[in-house]
């Protein structure tokens, strides 16, 4: 039977709500993840400039900390909303998952809620604290925020890692029994996946924020404010960008053991080969790979850390258990390519700087730095697409199919459309507001209001 035909059959067999449910979840997660990155990494970066401002009595650094705090409040506000959406969607879209496995996977969410609460409260205290608390104590309010970012990332990623590496329960006669939520939370996949995401958050925030100041430098605003605003986040991003390929590599090697079908899709491996080549680009059409650039042996090296170990192919996986191969493959490689380019870019910057040359005077480097932020966001989106689509057709690996997890409600296209419209609106709104804040700051307005912050001095009566 030709593959194209069986694809159509599979599609027809899917419940009508499956595709819109997946799309809606993808849009809301893809949106939220960017804001979540800021919640996780921004407090730590702000801490560094704020501390510098206090210790060295550096007004430029203090000014940056103040502005970043207000930006993070806007992003946090939107993130809180989009996070609330996600917690509803867990039930609205995936009742088959939550109804059956809620007590297995739910506990990390409870801890995540806790850490989110802590972060929200301390953000409020921090925003109110400017000029009203002893400086050192005020600075210290960022620490719980940073810590809860780490805990929150761990918890959320833990649930996803559990979906990839189910643990902490057994199934007898179709019933979920022997539930141990702690084992589910600390499953085998959690530490590496957590590390991967946590470091990614620093890449995103570091590169986006430094990119904003690189844009200012490109426009000739070459002052201490812009140089410091570029450098501090860029240092964070550099460490993250250089560490990330290594973490990703170790994580990728685990997939060979835990999810061979996903690895086969990542590598576009139709048949099992050893040594396996690395296929750059390309698509699988009717069981044949088209348009890929093959590099011999590199596939084995990347996936297995060996020159000739075989990479399992899709031929080892029953046809109905294949993930959508092309999306998985192309997203995975886009992530890898972008990640590698970013690592190379930051490496070049520091190498030349070590040799006494500062690329901040180079317009091409500044253009790269501006592009690096959106690229890092893209890499995160591609990475999540690769791991989520690569897990299909399973929601819980080899336990629960996505078709059985999704709601059978009719009319999901309506709710998906509404989500799309609202999220586009929120993105536009956030963009307008952030741009207008930047404009007002440049125009010399110092005291902008913020969602959690105190009222503006002139509006207090």
């Amino acid at each position: 039977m030709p593959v194209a035909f069986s694809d159509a059959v599979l599609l027809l067999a899917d419940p009508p709500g499956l595709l819109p449910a997946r799309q809606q979840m993808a849009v809301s997660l893809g949106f939220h993840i960017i804001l979540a990155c800021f919640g996780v990494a921004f407090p730590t970066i702000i801490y560094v400039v704020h501390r510098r401002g206090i210790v060295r009595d550096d007004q430029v650094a203090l000014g940056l900390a103040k502005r970043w705090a207000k930006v993070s409040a806007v992003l946090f506000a939107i993130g809180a909303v989009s996070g609330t959406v996600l917690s509803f969607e867990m039930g609205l879209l995936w009742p088959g998952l939550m109804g059956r496995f809620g007590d297995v996977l739910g506990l990390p969410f409870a801890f995540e809620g806790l850490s989110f609460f802590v972060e929200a409260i301390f953000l409020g205290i921090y925003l109110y604290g400017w000029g009203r608390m002893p400086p050192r104590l005020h600075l210290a309010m960022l620490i719980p925020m940073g810590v809860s970012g780490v805990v929150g990332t761990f918890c959320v990623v833990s649930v996803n890692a559990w979906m990839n590496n189910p643990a902490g329960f057994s199934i007898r006669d179709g019933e979920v029994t022997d539930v141990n939520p702690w084992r589910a939370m600390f499953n085998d996949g959690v530490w590496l996946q957590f590390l991967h995401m946590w470091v990614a958050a620093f890449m995103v925030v570091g590169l986006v924020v430094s990119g904003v100041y690189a844009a200012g430098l490109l426009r000739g605003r070459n002052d201490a404010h812009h140089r410091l605003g570029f450098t501090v986040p860029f240092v964070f991003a550099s460490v993250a960008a250089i560490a990330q390929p290594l973490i990703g590599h170790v994580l990728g090697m685990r997939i060979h053991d835990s999810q061979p079908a996903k690895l086969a899709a990542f590598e576009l491996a139709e048949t099992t080969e050893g040594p396996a080549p690395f296929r750059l680009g390309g698509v699988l059409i009717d069981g044949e790979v088209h348009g890929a650039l093959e590099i011999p042996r590199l596939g084995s090296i990347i996936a297995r850390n060996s020159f000739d170990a075989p990479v399992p192919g899709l031929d080892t996986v029953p046809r109905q258990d294949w993930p959508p191969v092309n999306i998985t493959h192309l997203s995975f490689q886009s992530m890898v390519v972008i990640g590698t380019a970013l690592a190379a870019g930051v490496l070049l910057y520091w190498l030349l700087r070590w040799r006494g040359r500062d690329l901040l005077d180079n317009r091409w480097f500044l253009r790269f730095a501006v592009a690096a932020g959106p690229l890092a966001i893209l890499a995160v989106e591609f990475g999540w697409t690769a791991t989520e689509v690569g897990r299909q057709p399973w929601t819980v690996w080899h336990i629960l199919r996505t078709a059985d997890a999704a709601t059978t409600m009719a009319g999901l296209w309506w709710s998906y459309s509404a989500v799309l419209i609202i999220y586009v609106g929120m993105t536009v709104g956030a963009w307008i507001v952030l741009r207008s804040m930047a404009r007002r700051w440049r125009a010399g307005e110092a005291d902008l209001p913020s969602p959690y912050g105190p009222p503006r001095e002139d509006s207090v009566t």
Partner: protein
Amino acid sequence: MTLATAVAMAMFLGVVIYALFAGADFGSGFYDLTAGFDSRGSDLRTLVDTSIGPVWEANHVWLIYILVIWWTGFPSAFAAATTTLFIPLSLALAGIVLRGASFAFRKYSETFAQARLFGAIFASSSVITPFFLGTAAGAIASGRVPAEGYGDPMGSWINPTSLVGGCLAVATCIFLAGVFLTADADRAGEVGLASRLRTRTLAVGVVAGGVVFAGLYPVWHDAPTLSHGLRTAAAALLVVAAVAGLATLVLVYRRRFGVARVAAVAAVAAVVTGWGVGQYPWMLVDQLTINDAAGADATLVGLLIVVALAGVVVLPPLVYLFRLTQQWTRT
């Protein structure tokens, strides 16, 4: 008391807190909406901004707390509710999103036109959200959420008890917000604003009280299990609600705004708790008891640990934040 009951109580505590905090928060949207055009309403809108500014987002966390405990502790009941109440929950969610985002955007708006647009979205979605949450509560309380899920997608939340629930949620939100805003305006020394708000709050209070007790009549016929509970176990709480509600009105009338807040909180807390006690021991009335809906014991223990941790880690800084912001906005 079983483990499941303890977790259910912890969850319901979240419901009560959410009703109080988010209630005051949502209700302020009503005053924002009806503040009058442009400059006439600006003093009231500024007050709304100042009053809910420091706490408004923390309120979402209570909702998330409820949802997380629900799906972790009582997964099948959660799935039954989300599949049956897809429409009202989605609409409430849309309200929450529009409200949260536009409140943040309004605060930063550069021009008046921008602020007006975001303000209108904020205010109208503030009123819509509690209504739909109330209808969802009414569906559960009147036994319209079947244990296996996928109940009637429309009839489950368009019925007498749900409509009472929706109106009751809106009314109590507006009532609470009125009392709090009046007290804030009074404390800030805005005499004119405070007296305008006082008049409105008194009117709203009478209406809200009317809704609560007039609403009992349709509920009596429509939700027999709940009304039996309300007549017996929860009767004392309804009396407390009535007394505290009346006391609030008297206190607001006599301009004792600070104390009135306490009475208003007591009244609303009594109404909400009355619902909870009234439907005990059901998680989904007539369908699934708390004990039958409960997930694995190990998970319930884990949840209680989280709740205890929250008491230690979250409450002290939260109280600190409230105290600081109250002091700071005053000076």
